[in-house]
C-alpha cells in the first residue's frame, strides 16, 4: 500500500465519519458475535479432547432395546461386573470402571464434600491423566491411597508437592477412614465430563446383588482400543457376548432386549441418554448457525454499503483514469482499502469480545476464553476472514468501476448506482437480511415464551416452598436418622415433611416395573416409595379415593413381600394407560396386567418431577410407614434461606460429622432448565445484535439512497411532489424488501421453532402473536430507521437540491 492509498483511505474514513463508524462498527459486532458463538461451539465440541489419546478411549453404553419404556435407549452406565465378564471373553481387553461415589473430608471437625470417584487400578492404562506430582498408576494399586487434584492439594495442604504422603480423614461409602495422598493430578479442565477432584481404588464388589445384574446401571465402563478397527471388531462381537452372558435376566436371545455399544469419549458430552432429546447438540448447532448467520448479515451489510458508497466514487475513478491511472493501480487501491477497513473491523471485534466475554460468561454460565495464537488462536482465522470479506467488498468497486468507460461516467449527470440491477441486488440483500432478523426475533420471542412457560407451568404441585434434604442417605444410624427427621419436622416454618425415594429433581433411586400378560405388549410404570404425608407435602390433588396411611391394612408395604397384596395410589397417566377414563372408576380395581395383586385406592394428578423435555411416566406410589431410604422433602412457609439455615442447624446438632446437603425445589429443577435458558440467552444476544446490525445496514443504505436521490427529490418537487410524497417514496422503497422478508422469515421460523418445541413434552403452542409481533417490530424498526433521513430529505429546498451533484 503506498502513501496515497493510505491517505485516500484515511480521508474517506474521516470524511464520512458516521457512515464509517456504522459500517465498520456493524461488521465488527458481526465478527464479535461470530467469534463468541464460535468459542462456545468450540468449547462444547471439545470435551475430552484435552486428554492425550482421547480418540482411543470409548465409553460403554448399555442399550435398552425394548421400546417405549422409561429406560429405553442407550445409557452412559453399565452394570458393575461388566468389565470382569469382558475380560474373560475378550482376553487382553484394556478397560477401567469409574464409579461416582462422593466423599466427605473431615478437617478440623468440619465435613467438606469432594467429588470422589473410584476406579480400577487399570485406570491409567485407559486414561493418560496428566499428573502434577507423585505417581498415579502405582498409587491406585493400594486401596488405602487417594489421588487428588491440584486445587484440592492446594486447599488442604498448600501445594501439590507438600500433599504427597499426607493423610486425610474421609468418609467414603459410609465408612470413615484415613487415606494417604499418593499423587496429585492436574485439575480436570471445564470441558470434561469426568468431573472428579479425588480418585481412589474401586473395591471388588462382586458380592453386591446388583453387581452382575444385566440391565442395571451402577457405574461407567471405559475401554481403550489402539485403533478404530479393533473397536469396530469388538462392537461386532458384542451381541454374541450379550446372548452368552445375559441369560439370567433376559429371555433368549438377550440381544433383542439389551446390548452394549461403544461411544467415543469425545462424543460423550453431546450425546443424549436414553429417551432424552438431542437438545444439547441442537443448541450447539443452533447457536453455531446464529453465529454464522449474524456474520453473514454483517458481511452482506458491509459489502452492500461499501459497494454502494463506491458507486458514488465512480467520478473519482473516472477522473483518476483521465489523469492516467491504469486499471491495475485502481484495482490495487480499492482492494487494499477494503481489506484494511475490514482488518480494522476485525481488530475492533477482538476488543469487543475481550470486553464482553466476562458478561457473556456470566449470562451463559460459561467459562469461555479467547486464545490469540496457536492451534486454537483466532488471529489467523481473523486475518483470513478479513482477506475474504475485504476481497468481496473491494471487488465490485475494484473491477467494475475501474472498467467503466471514463467518458460515460463523466458525462452522466448523476452518480451511477449500478442501475436497476444494482438497485434490485441491494433490495434483495436487504430482504435477506431482514428475513434473518425477523426469523431471529420470532425465535427469540418463542424461546423466551417457552422458558417463561417452564418457569410458571403447572407441574402438578407447588414448586415454591419445598426444601429437599438430600443427605438423608448418609445417615446410617437408625436412631440418628429418626432424630434428624423429628427435628426437621418440628421446625417452626415446616408445615409438612415426608421421605420418598422419588422427589422433584430426581430421587435416590429410579424404579420402573414392567408387567406383561399373555401376548400383550408390556406396560411400564414408575414406582415411587413414599412415607407419611408425602401427598400433603407436595400438595397433590386427590382425584378419587384416598391417600395411603398406616390405619388401613395392606397400605404399609414395610413387612409385605413383593407377591403379597398391597394398596397403591396411581397417577392419571397410569389410570389412562390401564384403560380408565374416570378416576372414580379405577378405585378398588387391580393394576392387573400380570402384576402382583395391587389394589388402587386413590388416584392423584400427574406430577412432573423431572425434565420438561421428557414425558411424565405412568406412576404408582407404595407406602412405607417408616421409610429408611430416600430424600426428605419439607414443605415450608417464608424465606427459603431461613428454613435452609434452621434445617442445617437442626442437622448439625444431631449429626455434625455428616455433611448436610439440601436444595430448594426450584433449585433442583434448575438443572433441567439451565441448558435451555443459557441457549435462550445466548440466542437472544446473538439475535439482538443481528437485528442491530441489520438496522445499521438499513440506515446506511437509506442514507446512501437519499444522498444519491437528492437531485431526484428536487426534480420531483419541481414537478409538484409534496413533502409527504417524498417521504412516502423514500420509506416505501424499503417496505417492499421488508415485506418480502416476512414471507421468507415466517416459514423459516415456523419450521425451526416447531422443531425446537418438539423437544419438549411440556411446551407452548406456536402463536401467531410471535410472528405478527416480530414482523410489526421489524417494520417499525425499518420505518423509524429511514424515516428521519426521509423527513430531512423531504424538507430540502428544491432549488438547492437541483444544484446538487
Amino acid at each position, binding site marked *: 500500500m503506498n502513501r496515497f492509498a493510505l491517505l485516500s483511505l484515511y480521508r474517506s474514513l474521516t470524511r464520512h465519519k458516521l457512515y464509517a463508524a456504522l459500517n465498520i462498527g456493524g461488521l465488527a459486532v458481526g465478527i464479535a458475535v461470530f467469534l463468541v458463538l464460535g468459542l462456545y461451539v468450540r468449547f462444547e465440541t471439545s470435551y475430552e479432547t484435552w486428554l492425550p489419546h482421547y480418540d482411543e478411549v470409548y465409553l460403554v453404553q448399555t442399550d435398552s432395546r425394548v421400546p417405549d419404556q422409561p429406560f429405553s435407549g442407550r445409557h452412559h452406565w453399565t452394570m458393575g461386573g461388566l468389565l470382569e465378564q469382558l475380560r474373560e471373553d475378550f482376553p487382553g481387553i484394556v478397560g477401567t470402571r469409574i464409579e461416582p461415589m462422593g466423599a466427605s473430608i473431615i478437617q478440623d471437625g468440619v465435613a467438606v464434600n469432594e467429588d470422589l470417584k473410584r476406579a480400577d487400578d487399570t485406570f491409567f492404562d485407559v486414561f493418560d491423566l496428566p499428573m502434577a506430582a507423585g505417581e498415579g498408576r502405582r498409587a491406585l494399586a493400594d486401596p488405602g491411597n487417594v489421588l487428588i487434584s491440584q486445587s484440592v492439594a492446594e486447599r488442604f495442604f498448600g501445594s501439590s508437592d507438600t500433599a504427597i504422603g499426607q493423610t486425610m480423614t474421609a468418609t467414603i461409602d459410609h465408612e470413615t477412614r484415613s487415606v494417604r495422598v499418593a499423587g496429585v493430578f492436574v485439575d480436570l479442565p471445564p470441558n470434561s465430563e469426568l468431573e472428579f477432584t479425588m480418585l481412589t481404588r474401586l473395591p471388588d464388589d462382586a458380592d453386591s446383588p446388583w453387581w452382575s445384574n444385566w440391565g442395571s446401571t451402577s457405574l461407567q465402563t471405559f475401554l481403550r482400543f489402539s485403533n478404530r478397527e479393533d473397536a469396530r471388531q469388538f462392537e461386532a462381537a458384542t451381541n454374541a457376548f450379550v446372548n452368552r452372558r445375559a441369560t439370567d435376566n433376559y429371555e433368549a436371545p438377550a440381544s433383542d432386549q439389551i446390548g452394549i455399544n461403544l461411544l467415543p469419549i469425545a462424543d460423550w458430552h453431546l450425546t443424549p441418554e436414553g429417551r432424552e432429546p438431542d437438545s444439547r447438540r441442537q443448541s450447539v448447532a443452533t447457536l453455531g448457525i446464529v453465529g454464522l448467520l449474524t456474520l453473514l448479515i454483517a458481511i452482506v451489510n458491509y459489502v452492500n454499503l461499501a459497494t454502494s458508497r463506491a458507486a458514488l466514487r465512480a467520478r473519482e475513478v473516472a477522473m483518476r483514469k483521465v489523469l492516467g491511472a491504469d486499471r491495475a493501480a485502481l484495482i490495487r487501491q480499492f482492494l487494499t482499502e477494503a481489506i484494511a477497513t475490514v482488518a480494522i473491523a476485525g481488530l475492533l471485534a477482538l476488543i469487543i469480545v475481550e470486553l464482553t466475554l466476562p458478561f457473556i460468561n456470566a449470562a451463559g454460565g460459561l467459562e469461555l476464553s479467547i486464545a490469540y495464537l496457536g492451534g486454537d488462536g483466532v488471529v489467523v482465522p481473523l486475518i483470513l476472514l478479513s482477506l475474504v470479506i475485504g476481497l468481496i467488498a473491494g471487488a465490485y468497486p475494484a473491477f467494475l468501476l475501474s472498467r467503466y468507460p471514463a467518458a460515460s461516467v463523466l458525462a452522466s*449527470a448523476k452518480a451511477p448506482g449500478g442501475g436497476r440491477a444494482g*438497485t434490485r441486488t441491494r433490495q434483495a440483500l436487504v430482504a435477506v437480511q431482514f428475513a434473518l432478523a425477523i426469523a431471529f426475533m420470532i425465535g427469540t420471542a418463542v424461546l423466551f415464551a417457552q422458558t417463561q412457560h417452564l418457569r410458571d407451568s403447572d407441574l402438578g404441585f407447588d414448586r415454591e416452598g419445598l426444601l429437599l434434604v438430600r443427605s438423608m442417605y448418609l445417615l446410617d444410624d437408625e436412631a440418628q436418622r429418626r432424630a434428624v427427621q423429628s427435628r426437621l419436622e418440628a421446625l417452626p416454618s415446616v408445615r409438612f415433611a415426608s421421605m420418598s425415594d422419588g422427589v422433584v429433581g430426581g430421587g435416590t433411586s429410579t424404579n420402573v416395573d414392567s408387567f406383561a400378560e399373555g401376548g400383550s405388549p408390556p406396560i411400564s410404570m414408575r414406582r415411587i416409595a413414599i412415607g407419611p404425608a408425602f401427598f400433603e407435602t407436595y400438595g397433590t390433588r386427590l382425584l378419587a379415593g384416598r391417600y395411603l396411611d398406616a390405619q388401613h391394612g395392606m397400605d404399609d408395604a414395610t413387612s409385605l413381600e413383593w407377591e403379597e397384596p398391597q394398596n397403591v395410589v396411581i397417577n392419571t397417566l397410569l389410570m389412562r394407560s390401564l384403560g380408565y377414563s374416570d378416576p372414580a372408576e379405577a378405585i378398588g380395581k387391580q393394576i392387573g396386567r400380570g402384576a402382583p395383586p395391587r389394589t388402587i385406592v386413590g388416584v392423584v394428578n400427574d406430577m412432573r418431577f423431572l425434565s420438561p423435555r421428557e414425558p411424565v411416566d405412568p406412576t404408582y406410589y407404595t407406602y412405607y410407614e417408616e421409610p429408611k431410604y430416600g430424600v426428605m422433602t419439607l414443605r415450608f412457609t417464608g424465606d427459603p434461606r431461613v428454613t435452609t439455615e434452621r434445617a442445617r442447624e437442626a442437622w448439625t446438632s444431631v449429626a455434625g460429622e455428616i455433611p448436610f446437603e439440601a436444595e430448594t425445589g426450584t433449585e433442583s429443577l434448575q438443572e433441567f432448565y439451565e441448558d435451555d435458558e443459557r441457549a435462550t440467552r445466548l440466542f437472544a444476544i446473538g439475535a439482538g445484535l443481528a437485528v442491530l446490525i441489520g438496522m445499521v445496514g438499513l440506515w446506511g443504505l437509506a442514507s446512501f439512497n437519499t444522498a444519491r436521490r437528492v437531485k431526484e427529490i*428536487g426534480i420531483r418537487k419541481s*414537478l*409538484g*411532489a*409534496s413533502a409527504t410524497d417524498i417521504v412516502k417514496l423514500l420509506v416505501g422503497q424499503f417496505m417492499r424488501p421488508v415485506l418480502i422478508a416476512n414471507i421468507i422469515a415466517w416459514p423459516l421460523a415456523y419450521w425451526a421453532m416447531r422443531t425446537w418445541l418438539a423437544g419438549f413434552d411440556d411446551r407452548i403452542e406456536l402463536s401467531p402473536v410471535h410472528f405478527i409481533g416480530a414482523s410489526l417490530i421489524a417494520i417499525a424498526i425499518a420505518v423509524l430507521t429511514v424515516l428521519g433521513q426521509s423527513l430531512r430529505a423531504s424538507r430540502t*429546498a428544491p432549488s438547492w437540491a*437541483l444544484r446538487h451533484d
Partner: protein
Amino acid sequence: MIKLENIERRYISDEVETTALLDVNLAVASGEFLAIMGPSGCGKSTLLNTLGTIDRPTSGQYWFGDTDLAAMGEKDLAKFRAAELGFVFQSFNLIDELTIQENVALGLAYRKDVAGNKAERVAAAMDTVGIAHRARHFPHQLSGGQQQRAAIARAIVGQPKLILADEPTGNLDTANGEQVMNILTALNDDGATIVMVTHSPSHADMAKRRIDMLDGRIVASAMRAI
C-alpha cells in the same frame, strides 16, 4: 397573469451575504414568451426558481392570477406546481432509473385532479416533441437533444399555464438547440406562457419579449418587433 413586486432574495451563508435578486418588479401576461438574459451570476436562475416557487424570496409579493403565492404553505405550493407549472432545465434532470415514458409520466404523477387516460396524454406529449420511438429507453441511452425533448414532454404533459425553462439549449449543439426552440415556439403559439433563461441572443430573439439583468436587477426590457 404573473406579477412580481419588490422581490428581494438574499443568501446568507457563513456570514457572507449575497444578494441574488434586488427590487425586482416584473409582470408576465398570459400567452407571453419572455427571455431573460444577463451575465453569469446575475440572478437569472434565482428569478426563474422564484417564479417556479421552488425558491422563496426573502421579501416581496408574488401574484399568480389572483393568488398570493408568497402567503402559501409548502403543501399548497407543491399542488400549485403540479397543476400550473412545467420546468425545463439546462441539464435535463431526467431520473436515470426511469424510462423516458416513465419520466414523462412523472409530470402527471403528482396531479390528483387528472382523471382519465394518463397513458394517452403521455403518448401525446412524447409525440409533440418527437421522442415517442424512444419511450422504453433509459435517459443515458439518448442523445442530449433527445433527453431535452423528453424533459420538455415531461413539462408539458400536464398542460401547464406556465413553462419555465432555464437555459434549455445550454447543453445542446446548434441543430438540437434549434429543434428545442422550435418546439417552445410552437407551444407558445398554442397558447402556453413561457419564461426562458438563455445566453444565446438568437434564441432570445425568438421570444416575444426580452429582459436583461445585472447584479440581481432588471436593467432593460424590450419587445420584439413583429
